[in-house]
Structure formats: structure tokens, C-alpha cells
């Protein structure tokens, strides 16, 4: 048994920021199933929003304007108190990261460069060329090294221990040794990332299974707004690798097979810089109505950067340039990029407040695995990196406050009981003869991408619910190829699949019940927003029969009354 005051699960931006904020005063341990620098924060490209007003075109930007853009972008489902906190905190966070060494791109006057992003009224997205996530994650990891944070790389969390309304820690599988290790902590923080990989087509890393979210749910923690799944408009055909919104922020165009900048017929003012939910629907409509291009890998739309010129592409979008060459053999200086929309971000997640606190004593969550909610029904580009660092920091502050006021006593017995259960589960999964886990994961991904995508209907969602339930039944008979507990990646996949299925179940059920269209949740059979009945958060909790029980929670509105969302 290992003991820490505070245990952080996840080595991305959220986890590292929380660790850096707490390690001076507490005995902190950070667990990550990969080396922290392999976390998916590294893949964020475009930037981080903050109303620095450095851009000559945005000198009168303020945190209030950033708040309004975010509230409107969220289709009024975001909690306005939390959005205010995030936007007010944003400039401080960006300056702090800069002071810690983040190599932001610069304007000629030496200040941090900012560019426009979709749904923002001002050019307020700070960036480090097109590898902003990489630059920020390296900076925070460097800070964690400087602060000597205790890190356990390649430790895989298999279960969250919650008993009597309190969290006691987690059970870990040491990937190298195969040993099960109970870790006891007064406070456990999840910064475990989103659930993109429940979809077949996703920009997300393979590690983004959403298992942290499913684990919290199975331990009795509520999940919020799970049906709100962001589909990014521009992902590379085939691999679905992200083509940052920065491509359009720098002036890129979208073309259909008639050579038209088709956004003019949908959103003539914002054009390519309308928010993601809208642009994704426009692209999908163009494809559905026969105005896409054909490719052996599927139908696509063109993202054209050529008019930006070689110099700007190489200076501002060098990563995009090399990804296109490596992964599809296209030089974006010379040819348009073939793109399609695909799953990108999880707006929903573990139900927490603006302090990162869940309803369970001693259990906190922040970043993409959590839902505060600051993104509501649709996240704006540049707000996810901001969310991870702001709420990593604020969660650390809230934990410090809680532990200063009263001590928590996590109990060893509960952990030992959970360890036994995990052991049993592993023994069952390593018993030969059952179905291999990849088949179930592939079927799940197909159902989610085909029936719970950009456009949704009651019939398809009902079918998806039925299919997810059937895959859950098949899961009882899953087995992996080897009884080894060490270095057994197939076993990890099987363990995570359990949680992915629960996550998918809550997404589908939430989407089926929400009979309106709001932000990224678009129902063809209820194609308008319905504030009278649906201006509320969906909460999913696991019931006694292990089925999800859905309830609803009010949205916090401070100063922006819901209006029609027009761009």
C-alpha cells in the first residue's frame, strides 16, 4: 500500500498543473498510464484563449467579452459563474505559463501573438506556432521536474475506491511489473481526459478511452451532459488527424466540389470562422447532398491554404504542413487538404463544480474528463487548453482549502476489498475461450460514429442504445490472449472497455432523451433549441440495477439571458 495526501491521476495539463500547485505543501503523487509527455494535451495545436488584447485588431478585448463569446458558443448551456471565473483567470494563466518558459509565438513588439478563432469576437487565441499543446505540456512538465513532483509513469489505474460517500484512493496496475498496488489518499484528483475513443472516427489519441470517466461513474459519481460531443470540422481524411482551427484562423478556405466557398450560403458573416458545431454540420450537409469529393478513404471537402503562401504556412502552420506530407502525401502549399468532420472533444464528463469538487468527499476532477460546465453544448476553439490549466490550478487551491479546514481519513480496508475485486476481474478476463476485446471495441466505435454522430434521430439513437446494451452483454464473456499481468496491453484494453461501454451508454441515453437541438447535439426530429424544456444539464448516475438513471440540473445564469445564437 502506498499513501499520499493527494493522488493525481493523469499526467496531462490538468494533472500537472494541479500537482505543481500542491506539491510544496502536501505529499503529492501523480500517476499516469503513459509518460506524462505522451498525454493527449500534447496534440492540441491551435492555441489558448485569453483577453490579452495584444493583437492590434483586438485592443479593446476584455475578459467579459471572452465570457460572452463562450456563453454564446455554449448555446447557453454553460454555467455562467464558472465561465466568468475561467475567462477572468485566462490572462493570469497565460502569463504564468510564459514566465515558466512556454515558447509562445510573438508579435513584432515582442508580446504574445494572438490570432482569431471560431466563435470569438476578437483575435484572442495565443499560440506557439501550431503546437501549442506540445509547448504548454512541455512547460508544465518542466515545472513539475523543477518542483520534484513524484511521478509514477506507466501505472494504470484499474478502479476508484468510493465507500460511504468518501473517496479512499485507487487500485493501480504497475504496467511493467504486473503488480496490483492500492494507493491510499485523502484526496484523489482525476485529470484523465476525454472519451473520444468510444467513437471509431476521432482525432483523439488511442489512450483517450474515457476510462477515468467510466470509472468514476461506476464508483457512484454523477456524469454531466454526456450527450454533448464535439465533432471537429477539419480532420484529415482516413486517419482523422486534427487540422487545427488555426488553419481557418490564419485565413484558410473551405471548398465543395463545385469550387464554392460554401460557408457563404450558411453563415455569410463568420464564414469559415463560425463555431465548430455549425461548420461541422455545414460540411456534413455538403457531403450528404453530393457536393463532396470522392476518395478511396471516403467523401471529403477541401481545406485550402494555398493563398496564404508558403512563408505563412511554414511559419504559422509548420506542423500541419508536415502532417499532410507524412500522412496523406500532400503539400498544403501546393494542394488543398482533404478533410472531413470527426469526433474531437468531450464536452460532457464527471459532474463537478467550479472548484473541481464532485459530490463525493475527497474526489475531484478537472480538464476534459470533467464537466464544470464551461463549454456547455459546444466548446469554442482555444478554450480547452484554457480549461485544463485554469481548473487544474483552481482545483489545487480548493483542495488546499479543504485539507486546511478538515482532515480526511481514507481507509485501508476499503482499498483492500477493491483490490480483491480487481484481482477477480483480471482473473476472469484472462480466462481463455471468450471473445477478444478488440471486436467489441470496434463494434462500439462503429455504432457511435454511425448512429450518435453530427446528425441524430430518435430511431437511430434507439438502435444505438439497443446495440450498446448488447455489446455490454457480450463483455461478460470477453477474454484476452495471455494470463500475464505485466506488459499486457490487451488486458488494459479489456479493462478499459468496461468503462468505455458505460460512457457510451450514458452518451446515447442522454442524446435519446434530449428532444431538442443545442450546440453539438443536433436532432433532425427536434431541430430547434427548446429553452422552456431543455435549458438544463443532464446528470447520469448508475442505479442499483447498474443501469443509468437520468436526472436534470439547472444551468447557472448570471448576466446573459439566453438569446438566439446567430453568427
Amino acid at each position, binding site marked *: 500500500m502506498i499513501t499520499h495526501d493527494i493522488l493525481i491521476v493523469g499526467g496531462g495539463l490538468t494533472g500537472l498543473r494541479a500537482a505543481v500547485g500542491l506539491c510544496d505543501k502536501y505529499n503529492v503523487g501523480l500517476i499516469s498510464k503513459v*509518460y506524462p509527455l505522451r498525454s493527449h494535451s500534447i496534440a492540441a495545436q491551435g492555441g489558448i484563449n485569453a483577453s490579452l488584447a495584444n493583437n492590434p485588431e483586438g485592443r479593446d478585448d476584455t475578459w467579459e467579452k471572452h465570457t460572452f463569446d463562450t456563453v454564446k458558443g455554449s448555446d447557453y448551456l454553460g454555467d455562467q459563474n464558472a465561465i466568468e471565473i475561467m475567462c477572468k483567470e485566462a490572462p493570469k494563466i497565460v502569463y504564468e505559463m510564459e514566465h515558466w518558459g512556454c515558447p509562445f509565438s*510573438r508579435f513584432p*513588439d*515582442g*508580446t504574445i501573438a494572438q490570432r482569431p478563432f471560431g466563435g470569438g469576437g476578437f483575435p484572442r487565441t495565443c499560440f506557439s506556432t501550431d503546437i501549442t499543446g506540445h509547448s504548454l505540456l512541455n*512547460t508544465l512538465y518542466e515545472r513539475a*521536474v*523543477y518542483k520534484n513532483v513524484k511521478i509514477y509513469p506507466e501505472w494504470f489505474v484499474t478502479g476508484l475506491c468510493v465507500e460511504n460517500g468518501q473517496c479512499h484512493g485507487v487500485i493501480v496496475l504497475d504496467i511493467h511489473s504486473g503488480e496490483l498496488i492500492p494507493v491510499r489518499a485523502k484526496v484523489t484528483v482525476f485529470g484523465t481526459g476525454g472519451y473520444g475513443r468510444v467513437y471509431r472516427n476521432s482525432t483523439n489519441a488511442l489512450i483517450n478511452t474515457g476510462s477515468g470517466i467510466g470509472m468514476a461513474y461506476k464508483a457512484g459519481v454523477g456524469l454531466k451532459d454526456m450527450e454533448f460531443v464535439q465533432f471537429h470540422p477539419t480532420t484529415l481524411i482516413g486517419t482523422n488527424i486534427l487540422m487545427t482551427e488555426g488553419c481557418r484562423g490564419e485565413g484558410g478556405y473551405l471548398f465543395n466540389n463545385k469550387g464554392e466557398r460554401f460557408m457563404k450560403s450558411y453563415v455569410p458573416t463568420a464564414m469559415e470562422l463560425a463555431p465548430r458545431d455549425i461548420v461541422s454540420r455545414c460540411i456534413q450537409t455538403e457531403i450528404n447532398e453530393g457536393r463532396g469529393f470522392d476518395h478511396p478513404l471516403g467523401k471529403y471537402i477541401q481545406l485550402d491554404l494555398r493563398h496564404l503562401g508558403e512563408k505563412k504556412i511554414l511559419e504559422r502552420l509548420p506542423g500541419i504542413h508536415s502532417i499532410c506530407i*507524412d500522412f496523406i502525401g500532400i503539400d498544403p502549399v501546393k494542394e488543398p487538404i482533404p478533410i472531413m468532420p470527426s469526433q474531437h472533444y468531450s464536452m460532457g464528463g464527471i459532474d463537478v463544480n467550479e472548484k473541481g469538487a464532485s459530490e463525493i468527499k475527497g474526489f475531484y476532477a478537472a480538464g476534459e474528463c470533467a464537466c464544470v460546465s464551461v463549454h456547455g453544448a459546444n466548446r469554442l476553439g482555444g478554450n480547452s487548453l484554457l480549461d485544463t490549466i485554469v481548473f487544474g490550478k483552481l482545483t489545487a487551491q480548493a483542495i488546499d482549502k479543504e485539507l486546511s479546514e478538515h482532515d480526511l481519513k481514507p481507509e485501508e480496508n476499503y482499498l483492500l476489498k477493491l483490490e480483491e475485486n480487481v484481482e477477480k476481474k483480471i482473473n476472469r478476463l484472462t480466462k481463455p475461450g471468450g471473445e477478444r476485446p478488440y471486436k467489441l471495441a470496434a463494434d462500439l466505435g462503429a455504432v457511435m460514429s454511425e448512429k450518435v454522430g453530427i446528425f441524430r434521430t430518435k430511431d437511430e439513437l434507439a438502435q444505438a442504445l439497443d446495440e450498446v446494451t448488447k455489446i455490454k452483454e457480450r463483455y461478460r464473456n470477453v477474454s484476452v490472449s*495471455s494470463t500475464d499481468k505485466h506488459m499486457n496491453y490487451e488486458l488494459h484494453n479489456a479493462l478499459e472497455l468496461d468503462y468505455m461501454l458505460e460512457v457510451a451508454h450514458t452518451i446515447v441515453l442522454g442524446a435519446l432523451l434530449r428532444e431538442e437541438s443545442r450546440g453539438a447535439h443536433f436532432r433532425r426530429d427536434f431541430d430547434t433549441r427548446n429553452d422552456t424544456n431543455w435549458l438544463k444539464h443532464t446528470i447520469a448516475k448508475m442505479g442499483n440495477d447498474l443501469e443509468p438513471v437520468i436526472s436534470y440540473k439547472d444551468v447557472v445564469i448570471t448576466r446573459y439571458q439566453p438569446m438566439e445564437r446567430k453568427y
Partner: protein
Amino acid sequence: MIKSDTYTFKILRYDVKEPDKEPLFESYKIKVIPGLTVLAMLLRIRDEIDGTLSFRCSCRSAICGSCAMVINGKIDLACRTQVATFGTDTIILEPLPNFEIIKDLVVDMTPFWQMYEKIQPYLIRKSPAPEKEIHQSEKDRKKIDQFVNCILCACCYGACPVLNRDPQYAGPAALAKLQRFSSDSRDQRSAKALEIFNNEKGVWGCDTVFRCIDACPKDVRPTDGIVGLRKTMLKNKFKIMSGGGIK
């Protein structure tokens, strides 16, 4: 040219927990659709043929640095390497050299990270932080650009002939990282902080044969960093000799 659509993957298998069993190549035959990467094939082999195969991966887009390995003799990331580029239907996969194998294609990265930590990989400031950003000109930002791009995948570490004969050598990635900070206009590390690498285990150990540059999947040139550090150290030495002292 693609000879056929069925490929043979020969993958080195070894488990440190079974030290009596020698490492050996296991062959897998699999149909390849043009345009697929080595990583995509590894995932299919693990799913469809052999669930016991171990390799690291995450982002699939050459940014997380997990999947460095030797592919038909060339060190690269499996995720960005197209199967069809080799002009042969046999693909041989081996773990990264200069490391101990844990299992199959997974190596023990501990020495790599230890060296990384040794260079003090963080911005060191002596002046108090300003209220807003520390200003940096576009020109100064450009100086660190290539070193900022490093994803710490250890391709260079695996390719380095010096590390092959001297595991105590700091290695290209750590030294490139040191140059990333040393040449950052905002960094105020003392000349002393560089002195621990002013020897054969540090910047003077490099053979300057540029293997690291060939191996880097992100166009970083670690040798440029090492040469840059050498120049800085010589300048510092000149300052001492001319009575400036070392900070």
C-alpha cells in the same frame, strides 16, 4: 514498389521476465491496404493475430513520441512510417537501440529521462517576473524554434554511436534541450549550469557524425545544439580568461 498486398512483419520478441529465452523474430503475415502506417499494422497484428505483442503508442500523429523503433534498419516513429515506402514486402521491426528491452518493442526509457532531468530542463530566471509577459522578439523566438519542436521520442538517442559505447554520455536529446534553454533570450542560467556538460560526457563527447539529425522525425538538429553549446562554453571561458569571472 509494392510487390504484393500481403506483407510479412518480422518482429523481435523478448520478455525481460523470461531472461532465459533469447530474443527472437516472430513472423506475421497480414494484408496491407496502401497508405497504412506501420503503427496501424502493429495494432491490427495485436488485435487480430497475437494479443501478447507489446509496443507503445498513443497519438498516431507523430507528436506524442511514444512509438520510436527500428523499421527495416531505420529508426523512426511507427505512426508516421508508411508500410509501402520500403519497396519490399517484408518489414522488420526491432526495439530502439541503446536501451534495455522490457518486452518486445518496449524499452526502458529511464536513462533517457534521467539525462533529461540532469540538464535542468526548465526556464531559469533571476529577475522578478513582470506583470505581463517577458518580451521576446520574433527573431529571438526563432532561435529556439527547432529545439522547441523536440518531442523526446528518443530516436536520436537510439541512433547515437557515442551512447552505444558510452552510456554515461548525455546524448543528443538532452543536449538539444539544454540548448533550447541556453539560447532562449528569457533564460538566465549561469555559465556554471553549463559547466557540468563542458567535458567528454557532455558536449565534447559528440562525434558530429549527424546520426541524430538523420533519425529525428521532427527535423530537429541536435548537433546544431551541441555545437551551439560548445561555442557558448568557449565564449564563457574567454570571459574568465579576460578577467570577467564565471557567474
